[in-house]
C-alpha cells in the first residue's frame, strides 16, 4: 500500500495552492471556498486558514453535499440510498468567484454534480476547481484549475485520501483493487 503523499507533502501542497490562488486572483477579494463533502470540506477549511495567514483576510467557506445531484441516483432498483448530509453555504455566491474544493478528481462526475448544485444557489462570477489529487480517467470534459498532485493510476487502483479531521492522519494512499 504505497503512500504517495505524507503529512508534510500535503501541508506544503496546500500552502503552494493557496499562493497560486492569491496570485491568479490578485488577492482574495470576492473569493469564497466551497468544499465537497466530506474531505473537500476539510481541505477548504485548511486553505481558508492558509489564505488568512498569507493575506490577513477571511475567505468565506461553505460545505456542499452533492448526493441529491448524483447521476447514478435511483438507477438501482434495489439497494440502500446514499446518505444525504447538510449543505451549508451561509453566504451569497452571486458575483463571487467560487473555489470548489475536492480531494480526488477521477471521472469528473462528482464535479459535474457539484457544478449543478452550485448554480442552484445563484450566479457566481466564476468557478475554479481545486483538487488534492488528479488521478486521470475522466469521463466528462472537466479539468482542474489547481492540482496538488497528478497521479497516474490504473482503473483498478483506488486513491484514498486520509485527513486528520476524519481519519486521524494525513496521507494519500494508492491501493491495488478495491472500490474507487
Amino acid at each position: 500500500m504505497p503512500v504517495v503523499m505524507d503529512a508534510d507533502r500535503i501541508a506544503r501542497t496546500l500552502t503552494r495552492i493557496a499562493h497560486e490562488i492569491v496570485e491568479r486572483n490578485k488577492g482574495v477579494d470576492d473569493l469564497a471556498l466551497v468544499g465537497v463533502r466530506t474531505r473537500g470540506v476539510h481541505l477548504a477549511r485548511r486553505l481558508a486558514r492558509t489564505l488568512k495567514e498569507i493575506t490577513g483576510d477571511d475567505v468565506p467557506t461553505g460545505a456542499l453535499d452533492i448526493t441529491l445531484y448524483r447521476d447514478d441516483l435511483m438507477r438501482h432498483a434495489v439497494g440502500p440510498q446514499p446518505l444525504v448530509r447538510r449543505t451549508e453555504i451561509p453566504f451569497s455566491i452571486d458575483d463571487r468567484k467560487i473555489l470548489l474544493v475536492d480531494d480526488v478528481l477521477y471521472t469528473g462526475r462528482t464535479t459535474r454534480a457539484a457544478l449543478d448544485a452550485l448554480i442552484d444557489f445563484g450566479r457566481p462570477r466564476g468557478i475554479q476547481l481545486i483538487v488534492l489529487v488528479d488521478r486521470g480517467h475522466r469521463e466528462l470534459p472537466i479539468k482542474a484549475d489547481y492540482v496538488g498532485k497528478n497521479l497516474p493510476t490504473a482503473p483498478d487502483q483506488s486513491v484514498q485520501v486520509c485527513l486528520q479531521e476524519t481519519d486521524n492522519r494525513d496521507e494519500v494512499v494508492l491501493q491495488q483493487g478495491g472500490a474507487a
Partner: protein
Amino acid sequence: MSAPVITRVEDMPAVTSLRRKDLLGIADLAPDEISLVLETAEAMKEIGSRPIKKVPALRGKTVVNLFFEPSTRTRTSFEIAEKRLSADTLNIAIASSSVVKGETLADTALNLEAMQPDMIVLRHSSSGACHLLARICRSAIINAGDGMHEHPTQALLDAFTIRERKQRLAGLKVAIVGDLLHSRVLRSNIHLLTKMGADVWVCGPPTLFPTDITRFGVRATSRVDEAVADADVIMLLRIQLERMEGAFFPSLREYFNVFGMTEARLRLAKPDVIIMHPGPMNRGVEIASEVADGPFSVILDQVANGVAVRMAVLYLLAGGAEHETAA
C-alpha cells in the same frame, strides 16, 4: 465583518436506508430507521432556504397523492415535498374519483398502478387501508393517515420539531392531551416517542380513553395538571367533532374548562416548555388563542418541518427498499 464559519460536527447515522418498501406506520420502524429519517430531514430542510428550492433527486419518478379524506396541510405538504425533489405529482381527491361511482379501494389502486406510479401517498378513513394497498401494489405506499390507526409522517415531523428545540428525545417528559380515542396522531406519536426513550403521559376525558392505553408504555391520567407538571413538551390533540357519534363530554366549553391549554396551566410545565398541535386547531376548545399564538408555541414550525420530513421519507423510499431476507 468576519466570514461565516462552519462549526457543526457531523454524526453519521447507524443505518443508511430504510429496511422496507412502504411507510405504513411507526409501529414497525426500528429506532435507527427513525434516526435516519430525522437526520435526512435536517439536510432536506436546508433546501427550503435556497433561492431555488428544488433538487433533481426524484426526477422521472411519479407520485400519486390519493386522498379519500379532506386534508389541506398534509396534502399540500406532501405535494411541496414531491415538487422540491423534482417528482411528477398527481393529486386524486375523493370527489373527482370513480369511488363515488362505487369502485373499491383495491380496484382504484390497481387501476392507478397500471399507469406505473412509483409511490402512492394514501389518506383513508379506514384503519388498515394502507396495509391492504401495500400487499397488492408494486408501488411504495406512504401512509398519510388511515382511520384511527397511524399517521407516521406527523409523528416524524413532531419528533423533528422536538429535536430541533431540545436536541434530544430521550428523557423528555411529553404530555399529550386531548381526544385520545380517535387520534391516529396519538398512536404514531406514542410508538415513536417510547421507542426513542421519552417519558410519555397521555391525558383526556375518561370517555375518550382507548382501552389498555398503558400497554404501550405510557402513563395515563385524567388530571391535566398532573400530565403537564414539569413537562418539556405539551402536545394537544384536536377534538374530532366529525368522528364523534356519541356524547363524550357535556359541552365544548366544559371541555375547555377542564382540559383546555391555558396560560395558567402552562405555568405548571418547565419554563422552556414547547406547545405543539397537529392542526387544524379548535381555538377555545383544546387550546386558548393566547397559548396557540404565544412564545412557547412551535405549531407553525411543525408545519414548516413537515415538508422536510416528507422529503426525507420520499427520498429514502424512492430508491427501492433493501428488503430483509430473514422472515
